[in-house]
């Protein structure tokens, strides 16, 4: 007993130690890679997708804005590629004994690009800005009902008061709502702040040619300026991934980061010694989604029949050229992922049994599957796989931008693909998608046992216990089959050999500030 508890104790200590080391390494990668006094290099040209909309991290910032945001702004803490937190604007942080007060001790040597000093009052201002309905931040739901208020105990100490113990808060703070904007600049520019961004980050905003590029320049007053080697970064918009790839081959850009790079291109660059292909540490997953309160999808046997009818290996081989993994589950990385579980596998016999049990076979009407128009071959393959067990399916196409709004409004009960990017805390997605109160629970999934597990997991700071609870919840959610998971894949960044210091955040957003060529 003593030995055992001793081992547990030492393991925890070692874990903490490892976390600290990993955190420091992570911080080193981004913030202090270069030796002191290293010369700055010229310009780094980065190709990104074309949905950039806003450089205000709290309002309307899209996937490809986020890449730029991390050069202009900083969070209190960030996570390395293993999901371990490390300090950025906060020197350290601690959670009070009740679990309802989180205290951040801030750096005192930080100023915004406009000269505003970074203090605890700024932190308070930022959180209140998101919580204020007048701001119109789409992130309000992530804090509302959780953060009661923020107190500036002194200039260098910010205390978050929570309505309940809430360990996922830390990971929410590494995302957009945790990036600190200059209150003076927000007041100065008003609604135009999104075009005149002012943060504390290693780069200052230079210009944004709408639809073409964003340019940022090294911030000479940055608190860790020696760690920044590039003098300038240009983020170039590319609506067509194939064109971005061609420009990389032609040497017009140095790095390509687009989420929907064609698998053939990724494979070709992987074989080419002139380029580096870096996969993100975390995986996005894709699933077929069903709305549980709409017949016939309220029939669990029918949903499970579909779950076993899907040949995931075939999908990965044919649709994704073998890139990514065939999987029936959704937790793929981090301390909470269950390495011994891969979800249900292809089993046509069991699928037929389930279909028979569902009683659906007697009905003549085919199911109507809504397929995103850019993924027609995938939709057709899934259709064929379901037809192979005797389930007739018709397809209707929906544009990429229409798919999620239609799912959210409950207009389409059976659709593919539902694709989500993991958050740095398992609660991030699990709660919004599968808790009966989750704002993105578009399947109208209700499982009181899952609610209970998710509540318990989000209320304890004990990681082992949380991992156990999330793994249990994962199996229940997978088995209920409102989502039929089939695929998971990292994002890929492709760069010319010679680019250094590039890293992915655990949220799949590249942190390019420390990169140089």
């Amino acid at each position: 007993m003593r030995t055992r508890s001793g081992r547990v104790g030492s393991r925890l200590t070692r874990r903490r130690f490892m976390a600290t080391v990993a955190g420091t390494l992570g911080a080193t990668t981004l913030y202090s890679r270069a030796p002191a006094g290293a010369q700055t290099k010229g310009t780094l040209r980065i190709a990104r997708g074309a949905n950039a909309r806003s450089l205000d991290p709290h309002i309307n910032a899209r996937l490809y804005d986020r890449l730029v945001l991390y050069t202009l702004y900083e969070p209190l803490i960030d996570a390395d590629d293993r999901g371990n937190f490390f300090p950025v604007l906060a020197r350290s942080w601690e959670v009070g004994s009740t679990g309802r007060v989180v205290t951040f001790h801030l750096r005192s040597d930080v100023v915004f690009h406009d000269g505003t000093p970074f203090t605890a009052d700024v932190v308070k201002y930022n959180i209140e800005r998101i919580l204020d309905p007048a701001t119109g931040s789409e992130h309000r739901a992530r804090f509302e009902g959780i953060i009661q208020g923020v107190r500036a105990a002194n200039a260098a100490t910010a205390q978050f008061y929570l309505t309940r113990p809430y360990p996922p808060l830390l990971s929410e703070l590494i995302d957009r709502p945790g990036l600190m904007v200059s209150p003076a600049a927000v007041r100065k520019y008003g609604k135009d702040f999104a075009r005149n961004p002012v943060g504390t980050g290693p780069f200052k905003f230079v210009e944004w040619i709408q639809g073409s590029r964003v340019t940022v320049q090294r911030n000479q007053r940055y608190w860790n300026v020696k760690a920044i080697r590039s003098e300038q970064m240009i983020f170039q918009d590319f609506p067509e991934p194939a064109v971005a790839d061609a420009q990389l081959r032609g040497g017009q850009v140095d790095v390509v980061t687009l989420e929907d790079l064609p698998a053939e291109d990724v494979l070709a660059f992987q074989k080419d010694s002139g380029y580096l292909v870096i996969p993100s540490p975390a995986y996005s997953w894709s699933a077929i989604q069903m709305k549980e309160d709409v017949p016939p999808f309220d029939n669990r046997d029918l949903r499970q029949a579909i779950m076993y009818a899907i040949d995931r290996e075939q999908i990965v081989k044919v649709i994704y050229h073998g890139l990514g993994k065939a999987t029936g589950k959704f937790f793929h990385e981090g301390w909470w992922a269950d390495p011994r579980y891969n979800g249900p596998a292809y089993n046509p016999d069991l699928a037929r049994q389930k279909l028979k049990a569902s009683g659906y076979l007697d009905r003549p009407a085919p199911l109507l599957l809504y397929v995103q128009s850019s993924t027609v071959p995938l939709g057709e393959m899934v259709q064929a796989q379901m037809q192979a067990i005797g389930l007739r399916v018709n397809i209707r196409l929906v544009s990429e931008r229409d798919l999620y709004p239609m799912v959210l409004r409950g207009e389409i009960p059976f659709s593919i693909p539902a694709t989500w990017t993991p958050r740095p805390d398992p609660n991030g997605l699990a709660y919004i998608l599968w808790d009966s109160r989750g704002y993105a629970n578009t399947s109208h999934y209700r499982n009181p046992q899952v609610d209970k597990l998710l509540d318990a997991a989000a209320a304890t700071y004990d990681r082992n216990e949380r991992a156990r609870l999330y793994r249990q919840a994962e199996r229940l959610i997978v088995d209920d089959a409102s989502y039929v998971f089939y695929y998971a894949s990292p994002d890929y960044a492709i760069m010319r050999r010679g680019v250094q210091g590039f890293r992915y955040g655990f949220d799949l957003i590249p942190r390019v500030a420390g990169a140089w060529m």
Partner: protein
Amino acid sequence: MPAMWRYVLRRMLVLIPTVALVTFGIFFLMRTAVGGDPTLYLMGHEATLQQAAQARTRLGLDRPIIVQYAEWLRRLGSLDLGRSFEYPMDVGPALAGRLPATLELTLMATVLALLVAVPAGVFTAVGRHTPLGRAMSAATMAGICVPNFWLGMLLIYVFGVKLGWLANSAYVPLPENWRQNLGSMALPAVSLAAYYAASWTRYLNTALLVALQHDYVRVAQAKGLADRTVVLKHALRNAIIPMVTAVGQSVPYMLAGAVIVEAVFSLPGLGRLLSDAIQSRDYPIVQGAVLLVTAAVVASSLAVDVAYGVLDPRIRYD
């Protein structure tokens, strides 16, 4: 007032009901037939139905469409096109920021296409029985058949990837650095111009062949004028009039082509702004851009009519 100016003024007045009709149509079509909720596109995966409802109220989308249209017209009266839903800027500056790239692209493509089409049209008509004339005829067919997005990708592959001539092909506004600007616009302009160069060549070729059969040409030849003078001074001058119509009428199609070319070359033009705005239901941008394009099309057809008079003094503006 000279007849021509009266004519121009009258045509300008016609512009008003035309624009009103088009914007009214777009206003209703976007909100009814196209459908979709702009606020949901705006918020992406973070959207909740409750927040979307709040945003709809904030943007005034919960009011009847006719009220929204009246409000839009009222603002238009004071030259206010409203504010984009998606981009953090007013519609006016957003359009103004995108206009130069599109104007430059279409202008360069037009000039380029004309530089090719006029000599090629003359040559394929006069030298239609020579092997070179036949080869050029075949080339024009290819030019018409090749889609501009494909040509754009091909040009990027050849000049960018294989030859490496495009090291600085990122778009730079003309006033900032004209060399780099022309460098970044050359391939897009060629992609867009190819079809028109080919199509106008065939147009001029046909018009010239018809003109060459007229009596005045035979008279000129009988007078002993040099072939060159007969073709260039007599036949071409008459053949060019239908060509002007073709060029003028190409403006709307060229703007449509610019949408695709701008996407392929990632140029920050009006076409791409409009196509993005339609996809994300950014109504104020769509309305502003359609207003601008409508005005451009009406203006170009007016310019064509005025050009007739200059080219052919027999045409009167009554």
